[in-house]
């Protein structure tokens, strides 16, 4: 995909706000992990989050579906504020898909069962229909022939694609990716990135934590750079890579692009 194409994609962004994070803080005990985070994500936007290890990227996106609890500020997903209300948390989790670094597939279920589990028990679908949806998305990620296998029998790249399909089966409005390719061998990274690019082309709203700068350049509308729990820079990809403002960003980019 060319940059031009990416810019075209930018047009697909609507004005509808999907995620709104306002003055969010989080502490682990006394340790201040996230400091005054402000992000607005519109429908159809693709945000890439990067930053050094330990800067709080994972913690930040895990707050969005309440795998972590924030202590100050607001997180509003599709107009619903995240509080400790269990019903609301469940409602939000249904609409927000998440893909993990280590796939986290359920090893005791087949690939298809992994995909159908949530539609059956959360969306209360008939099994046949859920499996149909499962197959549809397995085809989308190009591994329908693995449907009857167990996760332990697949390669890392295949597992990650199953994990993406599993999330898509819930037809989420937003997808969160936490370093989806960093546990993979180089030859498998591409197959996963290709799947993600396709997803982006279809207009999925995505927040992606990744160090794949090529992906950021071609797909992202905005790149967010975090360090020490704070957002240091938030720019369009061209500006971010060509003219970074902050010294920390420059240092980070020089390190990451060096190898």
């Amino acid at each position, binding site marked *: 995909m060319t940059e031009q194409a990416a810019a075209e994609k930018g047009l697909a962004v609507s004005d509808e706000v999907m995620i709104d994070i306002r003055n969010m803080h989080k502490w682990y005990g006394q340790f201040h992990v996230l400091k005054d985070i402000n992000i607005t994500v519109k429908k159809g936007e693709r945000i890439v989050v990067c930053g050094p290890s330990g800067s709080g990227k994972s913690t930040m996106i895990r707050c969005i579906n309440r*795998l972590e609890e924030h202590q100050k500020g607001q997180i509003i997903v599709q107009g619903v504020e995240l509080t400790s209300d269990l019903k609301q948390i469940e409602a939000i989790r249904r609409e927000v898909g998440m893909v993990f670094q280590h796939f986290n597939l359920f090893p005791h279920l087949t690939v298809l069962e992994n995909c159908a589990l949530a539609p059956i028990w*959360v969306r209360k679908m008939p099994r046949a229909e859920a499996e149909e949806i499962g197959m549809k998305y397995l085809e989308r990620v190009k591994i329908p022939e693995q449907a009857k296998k167990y996760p332990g029998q697949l390669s890392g790249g295949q597992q990650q694609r199953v994990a993406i399909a599993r999330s898509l089966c819930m037809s989420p409005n937003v997808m969160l990716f936490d370093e989806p390719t960093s546990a993979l061998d180089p030859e498998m990274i591409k197959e996963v990135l290709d799947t993600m690019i396709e997803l982006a082309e279809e207009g999925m709203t995505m927040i992606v934590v990744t160090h794949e700068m090529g992906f950021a350049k071609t797909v992202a509308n905005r790149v967010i750079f975090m360090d020490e729990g704070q957002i240091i820079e938030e720019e369009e990809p061209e500006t971010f890579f060509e003219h970074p403002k902050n010294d920390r960003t420059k240092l980070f980019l020089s390190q990451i692009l060096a190898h």
Partner: protein
Amino acid sequence: MNTDSTPLPKVPKKSVWNNPKFRSLFFQAIVLAATVAFGISIFHNTSVNLETRGIATGFDFLSTTAGFGIIQHFIPYTEESTYGATFLVGLINTIVVSALGIILATILGVIVGIARLSKNWLIAKLAAVYIEIFRNIPLLLQIFFWYFVVLRNLPSPRQSVTFVGGFFLNNRGIYSPSPVTHDGFSYIVWAVILAFVLIFFIKRWADKRQEATGQQFHTFYVSLVILVILPLLAAVATGFPLTWDKPALSGFNFKGGMVIIPEFAALLLSLVIYTASFMAETVRAGIESVAHGQTEAAYALGLRPNSTLRLVILPQALRVIIPPMTSEFLNLTKNSSLATAIAYPDLVAVFAGTTLNQTGQAIEIIAMTMAVYLSISLLISAVMNWYNASVALVER
């Protein structure tokens, strides 16, 4: 082996010795010969010893009269019964206390194990203290404590602790009313059976409907209602054909009703408490063995905590929990033989104890006793191996 008689003229001796096949065979032959020789010498010594002591071997003693009573028997047994009957009574008593113990210990163990992982600090700490205390004190000491200190020190039957509904607690045991059935009771039994059949079909129907339409059905509550209503209706229709025979004090002891003897209560209580402390650790380890990412992935998909537990955590944890749990079942069964220390009439107490002392048939009796425990062990292991093979995770 006849290695000496085989001439090996061409090959130097050294190379035969260095031939691994030959060495292996030679070594095995020696061990086998030693084992057989050992067995024969024991057999010889034993038969000489038995002869000098005038003990006849064989199982004839099983059909002679035992001449002693047993305080708890689930099959008819009197002093006139044979040693064979003694064996059976002991075996049944062992099985009863083990089976009940396994059920109760599993329930308690699972509760304590889950409590150990509770987010509630106090509950988690209490569970930890329970585990550390009860698994570090010898079982026999716990049995003695419950038997000699708690149950034996209860008041005499005349001063029984009385509970509502005809329950009495005293140093002769726990007395409770026993059910007496009258005409028409069989209808109630049939109603219960019918209820179970109905529940079975409702469950099948609900599962099918869930598969087909996704709608879920509160099978559990409906089953509960059916299980109560049907027998109740039958009871009303037949005019409550069940009365209770309440125990009543007559002379120095209670007559009527049912009694749980203190030996049984003490043994069961200590077996349950002791084994549950080990099971709790097993359950905790099993649940902890499921990676945290599994819970997170399930939550991220929108599954509720209880669905996550049922669909994701437990199926994985059970694979880890079942094998050590099996050995706890076996341990409990074997430990039930400590009954003999407080004279609960289990297999070891009445058969390997009293019967052996009276007949002197040590070999036969010990062999039979060991064979019983061995068969139970092998049976349970076989079932569990089969289960394990059927749930093993498929790996690349």
